[in-house]
């Protein structure tokens, strides 16, 4: 049991019965949480489990409807981030809180209430950086920095204010594996040497097990389970997180747990690996014999003097899933835009079965049989205010229209058919799209794209923000699509998702392909090196 036998440490922060409702949705329901000084406390849960809301309450961005917050035994009301900072609570945000146009020291100073002193601020930045071994140039503009360095700035910004409580919200989503490792090392330091309390919010089992002392698992706004990390096992955590027994192996993508699986029983692992190897070799040989369907040839895209796609070449064969891995912001969005006919190339070409697309013309890619599940389904995947049926026929409205008039009967018949086939849970074809859950919205997009029997399916971050069940469904659909002969291009920043689904993996860095691996040769370490921008020749050279 918690605290039994251990020295009773006064918690740095104690939340009691915290409840937050957004209309009918309860984001947090009577949550109790204690963060102890000198500990990293993992807060684990699926998307929408209430982790982020809870942290926003601590940082003052959200006010709880019920419940109390105590700091060092004293009840406090945190109106805004400024109050939180004064009380000694600092947060490293998931989508970083930095301003690109400002320099490092300006960003560190932002939001402070102290005297505005340039040289003192610069000195403090350098001192803090040195103290924690987070080297940084205070005069660089943040916009020029890599995601890893930006997070370093964010950490310095927090640590400079000497917080008693440090919150990190999904901190590794923008980091390479090496950068993540370094972050955790710093955190250990912060916790052990300086007795700060750290809350690490994550949906990745592996990093929660690796980097925390104590775990609180949230599900549907409630605390599902608490445990000490040393006593926790991955399957138990997964079960508590989802609320049912789940296979870590088939859901590796959802749990960020590829590494954990590989650590299973060695004998069993060897047998399995051998079998997988043999199977994969046959499959790979079979795949190599199939025709190339989608061919992107030296695609070049510039904007305002910045090269976004740099001689990017990718081929996808019929029936295979090619995974495009990379740290966010390395050309994934542009690649998705290109295949959605949203951008005009400055060089190179895209062709499907030998027919070259006239890039930049609206619909040019769809005409070639490319279906796209876009990165942001709200922004470019669908229209929230329209009905499910309208969204399902949106891109090929001609197929349900007669002489320019929409045949509503036909449209709804088509919608009902697709809703059944893809198991879309909605009040009916006329239900507003916005009323659907995230998973069902994504199914609508999937149904629309697959409904046209595309020759190529592009899936950009297809499982972002979905829960485990929805992720599982999406993964199965993508596999089935490939098996039916569709060439699938999977663009994802989740390494686990790429590893779980792809038969071939290309790695993007700064808009160019810096490595291509067969699934059989792809290990987390190898991919990790590539993600860090080390080219394939260099990485093999280094390991030799």
């Amino acid at each position, binding site marked *: 049991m918690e605290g039994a036998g251990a020295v009773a440490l006064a918690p740095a922060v104690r939340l009691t019965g915290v409840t937050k409702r957004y209309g009918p949705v309860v984001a947090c329901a009577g949550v109790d949480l204690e963060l102890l000084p000198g500990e990293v406390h993992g807060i684990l849960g699926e998307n929408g489990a209430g982790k982020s809301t809870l942290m926003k309450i601590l*940082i*003052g*961005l959200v006010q709880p409807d019920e419940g109390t917050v105590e700091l060092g035994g004293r009840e406090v009301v945190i109106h*805004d*981030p*400024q109050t*939180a*900072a004064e009380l000694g609570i600092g*947060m490293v*945000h998931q*989508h*970083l*809180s*930095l*301003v*690109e*146009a*400002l320099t490092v020291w*300006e960003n560190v*100073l*932002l*939001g*402070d209430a102290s005297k*505005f002193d*340039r040289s003192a601020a610069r000195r403090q930045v350098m001192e803090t950086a040195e103290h924690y071994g987070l080297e940084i140039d205070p005069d660089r503009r943040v916009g020029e920095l890599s995601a890893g360095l930006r997070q370093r700035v964010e950490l310095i910004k927090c640590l400079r204010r000497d917080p008693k409580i440090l919150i990190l919200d999904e901190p590794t989503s923008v980091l390479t594996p090496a950068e993540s490792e370094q972050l955790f090392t710093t955190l250990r330091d912060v916790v052990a040497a300086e007795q700060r309390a750290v809350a690490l919010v994550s949906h990745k089992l592996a990093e929660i097990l690796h980097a925390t002392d104590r775990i609180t698992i949230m599900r549907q706004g409630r605390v599902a389970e608490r445990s000490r990390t040393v006593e926790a096992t991955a399957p138990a955590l997964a079960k508590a997180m989802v609320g049912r027994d789940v296979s870590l192996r088939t859901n590796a993508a959802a749990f960020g747990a590829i590494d954990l699986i590989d650590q299973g029983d060695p004998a069993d692992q060897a047998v399995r690996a051998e079998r997988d190897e043999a199977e994969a070799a046959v499959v790979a040989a079979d795949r190599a014999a199939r025709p190339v369907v989608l061919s992107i040839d030296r695609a070049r895209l510039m904007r*305002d*003097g910045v090269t976004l796609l740099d001689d990017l070449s990718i081929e996808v064969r019929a029936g295979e899933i090619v995974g495009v891995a990379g740290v966010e912001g390395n050309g994934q969005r542009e690649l998705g835009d290109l295949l959605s006919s949203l951008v005009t190339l400055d060089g190179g070409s895209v062709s499907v079965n030998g027919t070259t697309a006239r890039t930049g013309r609206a619909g040019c890619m769809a005409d070639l049989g490319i279906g796209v599940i876009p990165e942001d389904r709200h922004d470019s995947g669908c229209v929230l205010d329209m009905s499910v049926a309208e969204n399902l026929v949106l891109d090929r409205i001609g197929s349900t229209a007669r002489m320019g008039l929409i045949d509503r009967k036909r449209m709804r018949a088509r919608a009902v058919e697709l809703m059944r086939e893809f198991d879309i849970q909605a009040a009916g074809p006329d239900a507003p799209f916005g009323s659907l859950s995230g998973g069902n919205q994504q199914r609508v997009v999937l149904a629309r794209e697959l409904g046209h029997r595309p020759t190529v399916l592009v899936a950009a971050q297809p499982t972002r923000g979905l829960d485990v069940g929805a992720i599982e469904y999406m993964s199965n659909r993508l596999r089935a699509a490939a098996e039916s002969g569709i060439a699938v291009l999977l663009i994802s920043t989740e390494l686990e998702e790429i590893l779980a689904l792809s038969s071939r993996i290309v790695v993007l860095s700064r808009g160019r392909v810096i490595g291509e691996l067969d699934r059989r040769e792809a290990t987390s370490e190898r991919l990790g090196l590539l993600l860090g921008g080390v080219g394939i020749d260099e990485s093999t050279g280094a390991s030799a």
Partner: protein
Amino acid sequence: MIASAASAVGDVLSSEAMYQSAMRFAIVLAFAAVGEWIAERAGTLNISIEAMMIGGAYSSAVAWGAFDNVPLALLIGVLMGVVVSLVQAHLSHQLSIDQFVVGLTLNLFVLGLALFLDSRWEAVTSVVKPTKVPLLHDLPLVGEALFGQPWPMYLIVPVVPMAWWLVFRTRWGLEVRSVGDNPQSADVSGIHVNRRRREAIMVAGGCAGLGGGVLVLGQISIAGYEGGHVGLKGIIAIAAVIFGGWTLRGTLIGCVLFGYFFALQQTLPVLGYRINAQLAASLPYIVALLVTAVFATRTRQPRALAQPFVRGLT
């Protein structure tokens, strides 16, 4: 034809009056443009800068007629600019009404109001005699332009460095720049985004009001105060900010450029050149249009320019 064009250019370039007139226009534009620059750095494309200028111009003129005191008249112009800016700031950054709808409406409303009131309280204009700086004033060509202006014009000399200092050397300025570039980040850092934006608009109102006052009291037009006195100079100030790529120095260069074209329209007839009056009058606006088309690239503008901020939407 070419020869005559060349000689016209020569005449214009060697005309002292031309430089003086261009400098006056440039300075008046610069007051408004500096204010607009601050508002835009905070993320507001503040088109009601025109209304703020009109408010400043009309109230300065009335105040001068009433009190016969130039500093007081200018001060009242500044205050009226701020009053107009309060309306813009409150409607667009508190009630979250579209900033362009507010700005456009405000421009028409204040212009109409000034025209209407003009029929009741007659505005008087332009009496400040030029201050001639000894010796320097006698410099060839530019002496008169730089060292022989009415004293209110020289208020631009402290205003520009103060604006720079405010934006780049104060906490307020840092916060203003952050809300113009990434309001979400500024918000999580604990900055009141819309409050900073409102304040920046008020600074713009003060600057534009002063510009309006200087315009009427600094004897720019030959005629006295007219209802449409400001004549879209506020809009041109916006073009100057765009031309300057949202830097202060570039904005000032833009003001000089546009001031030059305003001056052409006045000076060419004086120099004896016949030019279609309508064409001459529209020259600055044509140039402004070309300039915005060429210079309005997204790379240099504040990233959240003209984007409203509502908390919770990310």
